[in-house]
């Protein structure tokens, strides 16, 4: 049987992690279908039909799918579930909110946040904030799986021509109402997919000091991250949080500034290719995962860092 992937999008564009989830889903089974639930999301269905790994698109257009109301999404997905062996989505706040609701109705024990497909029923997933990896085999007939997007490369976006089939909506829930979304707009790359991430922690002392970070982020075309301590203290908004309960990032370069390196933070960044730690406490645990550690006062080091970057002739973007 085939695999059904639930697309994440904003009705205009496909959200980038959908492409990573497509890669993982097509490793489970090559007969991959994508379900697009949205409102006037024809462009999304079209974009996804051009992904070579995708064999078929099911497009359901209705205003009740304009926002991600898990109750409404679930009803529509259950309608299609019968023909599929696996239902998959990304393990970000979209899929985490949605998939267990589907799994419970299918009486399936969900496999969350996989980082590797071993076979169509066996997967590798991190537990204990990534301090252990578990190999798990699902014995349910129908499998519900969420995928850690940063563990899979994004799928090619063009060259395919999957057929788009329209389908009817399911009933809407009357007990949940969407009120508003406060999205933080930024010209910087997205935290989850940026090539370089520079993060600040409690050591930044206040929100204004994050300017030292953003100046460097501008120079390196980096995304800005933060530890939970910095978000809790109100220095920066929650969408920047990296860690076990925030975002997991795997950039080429991760620069941790004034972050001690609690287990919960390391869970979100320790798979980064190159890690730099700048901290004045030489004993801070962050140094145990850093490729390059600089024991220094960040208020001196960051301006120097910017001026050294300014001296370089070229910087990779």
């Amino acid at each position: 049987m085939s695999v059904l992937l639930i697309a994440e999008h904003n009705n205009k564009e496909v959200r980038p992690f959908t492409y990573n989830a497509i890669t993982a889903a097509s490793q489970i089974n090559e007969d991959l279908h994508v379900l697009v639930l949205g409102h006037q999301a024809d462009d999304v269905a079209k974009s996804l039909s051009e992904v070579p790994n995708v064999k078929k698109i099911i497009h359901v257009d209705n205003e009740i799918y304009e926002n991600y109301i898990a109750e409404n999404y679930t009803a529509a997905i259950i309608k299609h579930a019968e023909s599929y062996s696996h239902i998959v989505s990304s393990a970000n706040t979209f899929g985490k909110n949605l998939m267990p609701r589907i799994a419970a109705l299918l009486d399936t024990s969900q496999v969350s946040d996989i980082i590797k497909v071993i076979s169509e029923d066996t997967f590798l997933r991190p537990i204990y904030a990534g301090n252990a990896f578990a190999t798990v085999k699902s014995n349910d007939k129908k499998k519900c799986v969420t995928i850690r997007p940063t563990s899979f490369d994004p799928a090619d976006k063009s060259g395919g021509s999957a057929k788009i089939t329209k389908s009817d909506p399911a009933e809407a829930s009357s007990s949940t109402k969407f009120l508003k979304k406060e999205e933080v707009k930024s010209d910087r790359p997205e935290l989850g997919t940026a090539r370089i991430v520079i993060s600040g922690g409690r050591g930044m002392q206040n929100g204004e000091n994050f300017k030292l970070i953003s100046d460097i982020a501008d120079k390196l075309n980096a995304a800005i991250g933060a530890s939970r301590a910095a978000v809790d203290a109100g220095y920066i908004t929650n969408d920047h949080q990296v860690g076990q309960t925030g975002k997991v990032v795997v950039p080429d370069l991760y620069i941790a500034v004034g972050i001690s390196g609690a287990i919960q933070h390391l869970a979100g960044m320790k798979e980064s290719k190159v890690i730099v730690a700048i901290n004045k406490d030489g004993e801070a645990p962050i140094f145990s995962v850093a490729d390059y550690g600089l024991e220094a006062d960040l208020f001196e080091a960051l301006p120097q860092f910017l001026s050294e970057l300014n001296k370089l002739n070229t910087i990779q973007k």
Partner: protein
Amino acid sequence: MKILVAVKRVIDYNVQIRVKEDGSGVVTDNVKMSTNPPDDNAIEEAVKIKEAGKAKEIVAITIGEEKAQETVRKALAVGADRGIHVKVDNVIEPLAVSKILKKIVEKENPDLVFMGKQAIDDDCNQTGQMLAALLNWPQATFASKIEVKDNALEVTREIDEGLETIEVNVPAIVTCDLRLNEPRYASLPNIMKAKKKPIEQLNASDLGVDINPRIEQIKVEEPPKRKAGIKVASVEELVQKLKNEAKVI
């Protein structure tokens, strides 16, 4: 209103876990255990709602081995009125947990069920959503703000793009984020008082739900270790290394 709060006993968040040599799991003997951190936020929020006069009773429930009762006892010490402990001997999956919780909800008839958004041991992030599905109740996950209205809750949720606000009719399930509130510490007199509060004990096997595992844990292993790094002496050296050695800038 009546609020049921589900709490789980897990390895303390500050403990560096160790993987067992035989690959069967992680070492839990003689390891500090405590309440799953966002479950503390769930209890705190329930207590705040009761203090504001909007809830009459808070029932704390845990599912687990004998010692899991400690988490209920702690919830009683910060303001829950009574406890329920459903005994199971082995680790059970979120699907089984939500089936047990459904039975308890049917018996207790709460208006709201609160719990943490994720347990920090298995990192599944499933139970609340599954319970909501089984009860056909609305769900408000990853809550960082809850406003109680007439027969509804306005909940601000932490999502990848920022914040989302939804309204859910009561009865509803809410899973709590760490930023929802600042959990209080139990005072000594309240800890003493909590010892007198009742905890009802039930056996999962008496509830008539299938709690057999559906997922086989084949092995648990340590993640690949990072190679030890170096300390650089200056910012200048750092930038040179990033440019010429790591070649990332």
